[in-house]
């Protein structure tokens, strides 16, 4: 077992070269002995050790150098036999002076462990979250995609008949762009993911598969780690069927056997030879809406048909020629698109098609970017709060050291020397805090990745690497500068005479208190900004939970029940499914059962166009609607309300006539008078010339099946029998716990003989949860950061008031002696705390209004300037200020006047 890489990196940088190997190896061994199981405790232990080694050896090396020539361990001794000349101290170089000051700073800090620990902890709380979130920014947003020259890769998206930025084009268009676009070096395509059943040794497994054009992998600069890629003849219609498998499937199913190439794969009942294995970790990363999982296990060659022009379902990736920009290439394919519309008037009639090229990387991360940037903003605020807090602590310490500094200045220490010392102290503090923050960030990142919502792209690229370490180093240096500047500036103005004369009791205390007050005001303001962000997200999440989905996910379990494919006639398929449904309905604890071709909120959808005036002679010439096939019983199972007419019965499937159920939205749009039942209209699905006249038999309430946040499109439900699929989802409503019926449904499916395994068993609630997971995750992180901000601000206010109380012990004693009530003393001090909050809150509110527009895209059902949040958060801060100042204030009120007057 080895320690966490960033900690090892730190060690390797700090240890003297001759100690490196031994210490690093032996620490691994000691960690193994202490934590044989590994885990986060081992990581934490290692970080502790690495930090203590780094500090210990840093000081040791400084000591060795400061000890000078002739002393053990100095460079002179190591270079044996060379006479050393001892130079007079005064002429020592600038570097030597710096070294001495550094040793001095470390010693000064070690002398006050409580103060040092407080500053380091504060700063580590600021740096840690930055490290964690920057790792995400780095892995997701900054690091180039793992393909050859990724900056010239782009995804084709289209606008089509009211559909915006749809990530699919037609097969013929892929061929057209390849042939005509001069600015495109190549165009490859990939299908949506689909499930394939693999059979080996009598065992069946459902895996995710996709079709790709043979040129795609070479275009990305990826070649199989074993065997070969697809060849051009495998792209043509009816070309040979072969397969590439993922590294994972190779290890799982074939035990990593090197002779897998050439073996046959039994897929959906047919045999397909394996031609190669993709490299470990390879993922085809495409953006939202592309319905392509990064975890595809089986790649098959896509056979492009030049006649297939009106089914826009294939994701096209283009590589732009060297020297051309993506924008130039986009202009070119738009003009090619315009020519295509002229050449193929039937296929493109009224489609308003328009092509776009999106850089592959920004397309992939576009939906995650706002949340990540929001979090980056939040951690920056936390770092600022931590810096102001640390500055406050340092300023207070300067007060205590005033006399010492004055004495040294009087003895001839230059002002610049003193300022340098103070700055160096900050720097040492910042670097120690940086190391601790790195450990904290590592822990935070592990936690973050364990809870990430699954919608975060490029999760595998999120690691603590060199860039992150450099960032942390930068953040620590910035922090040192930010919080070290103020005390250094104050040290430079130290008034020697008055400090000495007054014995350091009053001195420039006024300025200092004002500085600290200002720092706390700034902290309160930053906290308000952060808390308002968190508050708005809490409100958003609440609103999301309140959304009327139009269906009831509770107690519903969904599972996919594919039939064994090609050789079945449509009525045979319906026969099997009908029997399956009938038997499932008789199972104990099953309240209702139905099924659908697409599960709600599963990020999948099919689009049809429809027209009520018979004008739909071709596809894409009407309004668009979402459509899916359902089994009888679907609406009852899902709790979708029937508004008018009836739901499907078995007869709708047996007779194979066009009867449909529409949602209220479509019924209202098409027949505003409310007489939808019995009306006929045309729908076009898939291919342009494939339009059907259908009759409305029922109207149901609209369900949020595409997006929890909004109504996307009207909906059309068709009876299963009119659809082609043998790959339906069952939806089963249970009495009570839905998971209990899963096993019996599985048994029934096997008994009925669907021929392929039931898979993807999930509760309907989990789909709803997943649709909100991104928001919940951002909220969780923002909440944590807001908690840190509150803690730090509370400590900030507390320490200022506690400091004031100590300063004023004498005055308080006088007041108490003169008859002041304890409550007066408390009131006086709490007022000071409140005054800081009163100044900070409006500043923070102003800042929050300024920043709120960045948050807008992530809010739902609440305004970015939501009054509830903008009133509530200040109250939290005021309560915090009262609490944080009440504690020292009540201590002050308990002073014994006699003691106070004597000691102060």
């Amino acid at each position, binding site marked *: 077992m080895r320690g966490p890489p960033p900690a090892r990196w730190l060690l390797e940088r700090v240890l003297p070269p001759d*100690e490196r190997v031994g210490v690093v190896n032996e620490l691994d061994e*000691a960690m193994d002995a202490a934590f044989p199981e590994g885990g986060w405790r081992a990581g934490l232990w290692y970080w502790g050790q690495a930090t203590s080694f780094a500090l210990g050896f840093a000081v040791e090396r400084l000591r060795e150098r400061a000890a000078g020539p002739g002393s053990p*361990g100095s460079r002179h001794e190591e270079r044996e036999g060379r006479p050393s000349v001892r130079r007079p101290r005064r002429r020592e170089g600038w570097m030597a002076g710096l070294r001495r000051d550094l040793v001095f700073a470390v010693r000064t800090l070690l002398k006050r462990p409580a103060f040092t620990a407080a500053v380091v902890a504060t700063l580590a709380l600021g740096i840690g979250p930055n490290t964690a979130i920057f790792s995400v920014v780095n892995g997701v947003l900054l690091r180039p995609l793992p393909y050859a020259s990724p900056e010239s890769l782009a995804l084709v998206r289209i606008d089509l008949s009211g559909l915006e930025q749809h990530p699919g084009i037609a097969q013929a268009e892929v061929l057209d762009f390849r042939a005509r676009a001069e600015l495109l070096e190549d165009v490859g395509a990939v299908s949506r993911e689909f499930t394939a059943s693999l059979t080996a040794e009598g065992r069946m497994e459902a895996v995710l598969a996709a079709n790709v054009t043979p040129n795609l992998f070479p275009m990305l600069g990826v070649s199989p780690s074993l065997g070969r890629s697809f060849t051009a003849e495998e792209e043509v219609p009816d070309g040979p069927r072969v397969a590439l498998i993922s590294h994972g499937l190779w290890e799982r199913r074939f035990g990593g056997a090197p002779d897998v190439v050439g073996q046959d794969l039994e897929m959906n009942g047919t045999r397909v030879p394996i031609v190669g294995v993709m490299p470990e970790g390879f993922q085809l990363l495409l953006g939202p809406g592309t319905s392509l999982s990064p975890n595809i296990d089986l790649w098959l060659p896509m056979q492009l048909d030049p006649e297939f022009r009106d089914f826009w379902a294939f994701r096209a990736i283009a590589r732009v020629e060297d020297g051309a920009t993506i924008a130039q290439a986009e202009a070119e394919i738009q003009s090619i698109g315009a020519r295509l519309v002229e050449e193929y008037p039937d296929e493109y009639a009224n489609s308003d098609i328009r092509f776009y090229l999106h850089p592959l990387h920004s397309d992939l991360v576009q939906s995650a970017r706002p949340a990540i940037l929001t979090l980056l903003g939040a951690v920056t605020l936390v770092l600022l709060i931590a810096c102001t807090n640390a500055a406050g602590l340092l300023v207070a310490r300067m007060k205590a050291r005033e006399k010492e500094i004055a004495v040294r200045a009087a003895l001839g220490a230059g002002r610049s020397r003193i300022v340098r010392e103070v700055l160096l102290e900050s720097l040492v503090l910042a670097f120690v805090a940086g190391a601790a923050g790195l450990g904290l960030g590592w822990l935070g990142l592990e936690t973050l990745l364990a809870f990430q919502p699954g919608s975060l792209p490029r999760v595998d690229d999120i690691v603590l690497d060199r860039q992150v370490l450099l960032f942390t180093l930068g953040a620590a240096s910035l922090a040192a500068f930010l919080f070290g500047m103020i005390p250094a500036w104050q040290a430079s103005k130290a008034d020697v005479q008055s400090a000495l004369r007054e014995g350091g009791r009053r001195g420039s205390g006024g300025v200092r208190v004002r500085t600290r007050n200002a720092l706390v005001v700034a902290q309160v303001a930053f906290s308000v900004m952060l808390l308002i962000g968190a508050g708005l997200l809490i409100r958003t999440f609440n609103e999301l939970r309140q959304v009327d989905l139009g269906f009831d996910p509770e107690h519903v379990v969904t599972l996919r029940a594919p039939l064994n494919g090609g050789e079945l006639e449509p009525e045979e398929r319906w026969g099997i499914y009908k029997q399956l449904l009938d038997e499932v309905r008789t199972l104990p604890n099953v309240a209702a059962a139905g099924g659908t071709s697409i599960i709600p909120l599963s990020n999948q959808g099919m689009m049809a166009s429809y027209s009520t005036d018979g004008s739909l002679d071709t596809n894409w010439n009407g309004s668009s609607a979402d459509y899916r096939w359902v089994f009888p019983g679907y609406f009852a199972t899902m709790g979708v309300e029937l508004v008018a007419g009836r739901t499907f019965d078995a007869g709708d499937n047996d007779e194979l006539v066009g009867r449909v159920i529409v949602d209220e939205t479509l019924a209202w749009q098409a027949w505003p008078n409310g007489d939808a039942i019995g009306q006929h209209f045309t729908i076009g699905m898939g291919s342009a010339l494939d339009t059907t006249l259908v009759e409305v038999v029922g109207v149901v309430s609209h369900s949020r099946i595409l997006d929890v946040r909004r109504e996307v499109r009207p909906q059309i439900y068709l009876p299963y029998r009119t659809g082609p699929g043998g790959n339906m989802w069952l939806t089963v409503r249970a009495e009570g716990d839905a998971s209990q019926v899963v096993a019996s449904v599985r048994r029934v499916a096997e008994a009925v003989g669907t021929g392929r395994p039931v898979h993807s068993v999930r509760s309907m609630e989990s789909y709803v949860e997943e649709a909100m997971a991104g928001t919940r995750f951002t909220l969780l992180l923002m909440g944590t950061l807001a908690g840190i901000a509150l803690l730090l601000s509370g400590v900030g206010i507390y320490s200022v008031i506690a400091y004031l109380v100590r300063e004023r012990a004498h005055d308080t004693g006088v007041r108490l002696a003169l008859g002041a009530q304890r409550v007066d003393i408390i009131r006086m001090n709490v007022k000071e705390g409140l005054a800081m909050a009163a100044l900070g809150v409006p500043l923070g509110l102003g800042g929050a209004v300024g920043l709120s527009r960045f948050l807008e895209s992530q809010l739902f059902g609440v305004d970015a300037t939501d009054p509830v949040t903008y009133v509530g958060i200040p109250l939290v801060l005021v309560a915090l200020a009262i609490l944080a100042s009440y504690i020292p204030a009540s201590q002050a009120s308990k002073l014994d006047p006699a003691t106070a007057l004597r000691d102060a």
Partner: protein
Amino acid sequence: MARKSLGDIEQLVLLSILRLGNETYGVPIVEEIESCAGRSVPRAAVYIALRRLRQKGLVSSWMSEPDPVPGGKAKRFFKVEPEGIEKLAEQRSALLSMWEGLQPTLDR
């Protein structure tokens, strides 16, 4: 030139190397100090002490071959030199002579 006396941890480290058969490396040394002296010392402090002892010439050290197991790693081994033993003996007798005659005082 009167050489500086040994630090507390330096003494513990020298003694534990000797107790461990005068040829050992960091991990057992730390364990030996913890189990025998009943003291928990920071691991880093032990390694720094070893470094100082090496620089003073009281111990010698060399890197071992990696352990003959998969993933075996090289370690830095230490051996106390005659100068080190001499130094320990010196310090022990100094301490013992300081203790002489103090027993009654302590028992009182």
